């Protein structure tokens, strides 16, 4: 009897069978895999499972507690919704990549040690980049490479932190970080890069808008929220995160205001929303951690819904820029209504999911008496409603008719959006369902008259402001510079600096060198003799030794790959044994 099954088994290994199935069977199978993963998570009992000893390390694949279960629950929901949304796609590679990505995110969630976490962490980056490349246009290929390079750097930083932690403490436990050494900060940087904390955020808004329509829905759910989970696990109560998170919440809002591409705008709002969660992790109180988990849970559902709405627009009109859209509500009314449910949820309207989750984080700032954090997070909430509840609906769906006459998207896309929209309202109306899943006991009541009126005033007065200035706030045919400038343009400018400044200076030195030493020809001849007889002699002697040594070594070499591998593993074992004593 197997007492514990890892849900990733269905997603990662199950996905490999997708190419062998066809038609209706394949479609059923694609929905079945995430449904099985969700069922496994629902039936899972808390405890530590799947402990494997490997090369002296204890790998824990199944740390199951309320925190990992809450994230695993919503990750499998997101995989199920995303798979439904992508059901019409005839590209097996994309389905496999999406499931491996979702599966590794679940793997990272249940990881009980940092090595297991790291393996799944890297697998997420390599699987998710296929969702960007699969769009098969030049911009996506390039953005995908940049995405991969940034995540590779983040992975190396994370690994460096893990190695240093292991060397200094002899432990790879994935728990609250102790001490303030280099390992503490390296692992923190690795986590913050995936959480898209500025200035390590540009990979997100660079790459997500270039992903496939269905791929972006998966991307919006997993990478940043797995990082939020990792931060909750390892860095609760780290004060730095309060300020970083608050800055992030505002940064996302300001850049979203400048975005013209709808998915880039949504991407900046991932950064903004994750900022609330990061700030709450930094506060670290029971209410704040509950708020971070609740907000991550609600966010995955409504952000997925918003990306699905944006994807429907892009798929049916071929346009992704606000300046090219308008008047779509007549042709895509169902999409519009479903999108608005996501927009009301993210804006934290009463009766929608954001109201019962985000307000926990802001209340936590209130309980800790952090007036500036409270004011700035509330300011960021205004920006959320402004962009997603007013700007996109007005300029894409209402506003002036852009001339496009799109139909509603395929039925599977609408069903997926419907499921997400239902959950957004369900959580908003019946928050106890969500509160029950949170790691700490909940004593929080969002629906007090003061709170409801408070929220409605903020939102509706923002709305009034928007309608007064609505002619001036549309998308402009422009792009906005962000940190990615440094590796997209900055590298080129650096090379030009090398060619135009460094090379001429070097040439000048060469001229001077020649001028100064031309007079000393006699010295030069002596130098030549020295060079020929002493230095060359030494070099030749070394070369002769190397050639002889290589001849001897050749006897050992067989050209068999297995034997090389054996020698490598053997040497590694000897080295690790040596390091023990």
């Amino acid at each position, binding site marked *: 009897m197997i007492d514990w099954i890892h849900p990733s088994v269905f997603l990662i290994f199950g996905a490999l069978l997708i190419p062998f199935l066809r038609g209706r069977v394949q479609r059923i199978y694609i929905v079945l895999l995430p449904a099985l993963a969700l069922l496994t998570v629902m039936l899972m009992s808390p405890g530590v499972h799947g402990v494997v000893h490997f090369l002296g390390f204890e790998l824990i694949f199944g740390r199951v507690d309320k925190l990992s279960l809450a994230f695993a629950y919503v990750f499998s929901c997101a995989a199920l919704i995303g798979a439904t949304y992508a059901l019409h796609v005839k590209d097996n590679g994309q389905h496999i990549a999406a499931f491996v990505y979702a599966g590794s995110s679940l793997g990272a969630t249940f990881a009980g040690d940092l090595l297991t976490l790291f393996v799944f962490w890297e697998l997420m980056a390599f699987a998710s980049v296929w969702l960007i490349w699969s769009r098969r246009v030049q911009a996506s290929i390039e953005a995908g490479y940049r995405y991969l390079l940034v995540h590779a750097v983040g992975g190396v930083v994370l690994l460096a932190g893990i190695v240093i932690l292991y060397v200094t403490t002899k432990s790879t436990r994935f728990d609250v970080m102790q001490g303030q050494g280099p390992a503490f900060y390296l692992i923190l940087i690795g986590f913050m890069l995936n959480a898209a904390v500025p200035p390590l955020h540009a990979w997100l808004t660079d790459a997500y808008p270039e992903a496939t329509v269905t791929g972006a829905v998966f991307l919006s759910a997993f990478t940043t929220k797995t990082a939020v989970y990792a931060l909750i696990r390892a860095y609760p109560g780290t004060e730095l995160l309060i300020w970083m998170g608050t800055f992030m919440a505002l940064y996302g809002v300001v850049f979203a205001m*400048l975005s013209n591409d709808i998915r880039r705008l949504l991407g900046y709002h991932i950064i903004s929303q994750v900022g609330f969660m990061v700030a709450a992790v930094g506060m670290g109180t029971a209410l704040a951690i509950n708020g971070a988990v609740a907000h991550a849970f609600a966010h995955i559902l409504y952000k997925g819904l918003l990306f699905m709405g944006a994807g429907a627009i892009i798929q049916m009109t071929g346009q992704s820029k606000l300046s090219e859209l308008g008047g779509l509500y007549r042709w895509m009314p169902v999409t519009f209504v479903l999108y608005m449910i996501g927009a009301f949820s993210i804006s934290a309207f009463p009766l929608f999911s954001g109201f019962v989750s985000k307000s926990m984080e802001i209340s936590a700032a209130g309980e800790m*008496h952090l007036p500036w954090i409270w004011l700035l997070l509330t300011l960021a909430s205004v920006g959320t409603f402004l962009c997603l509840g007013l700007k996109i609906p007005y300029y894409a769906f209402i506003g002036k008719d852009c001339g496009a006459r799109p139909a509603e998207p395929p039925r599977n896309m609408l069903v997926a959006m419907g499921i997400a929209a239902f959950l957004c309202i369900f959580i908003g109306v019946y928050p106890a369902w969500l509160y029950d899943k949170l790691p700490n006991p909940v004593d929080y009541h969002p629906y007090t008259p003061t709170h409801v009126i408070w929220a409605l005033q903020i939102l509706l007065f923002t709305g009034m402001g928007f309608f007064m200035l609505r002619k001036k706030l549309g998308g402009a045919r422009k792009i906005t510079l962000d940190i990615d400038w440094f590796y997209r*343009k900055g590298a080129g400018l650096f090379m030009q600096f090398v060619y135009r400044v460094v090379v001429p200076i070097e040439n000048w030195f060469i001229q001077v060198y020649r001028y100064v030493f031309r007079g000393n020809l006699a010295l030069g001849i002596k130098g030549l003799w020295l060079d020929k007889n002493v230095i060359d002699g030494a070099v030749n002697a070394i070369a002769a030794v190397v050639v002889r040594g290589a001849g001897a070594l050749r006897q050992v070499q067989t050209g068999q790959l297995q034997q090389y591998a054996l020698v490598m593993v053997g040497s590694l074992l000897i080295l690790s044994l040596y390091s023990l004593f």
Partner: protein
Amino acid sequence: MDIGKILENLVNNAKTLKRIGFAVLALLVVIDFFLPRHHSHFFWDDIPGFSAVFGLVSFVLIVVVSKTLGHYWLGRSEDYYND
């Protein structure tokens, strides 16, 4: 009834909607004067209508800051990276 028709009706009656909107705004602020206040963390929690003013001020602040940044510093033409 068809969702499209309902939306069409709403858009065609924008003027009525606007009046209802303003009435709701006024009503919210009036109600705020009569609400019981228990869990005040900050002094502004006790000022009726504070969040209405805060919402408007935040809106103006976000628009001004982002438009200024975009106009004077960060905005570029769409093929800036393709050159």
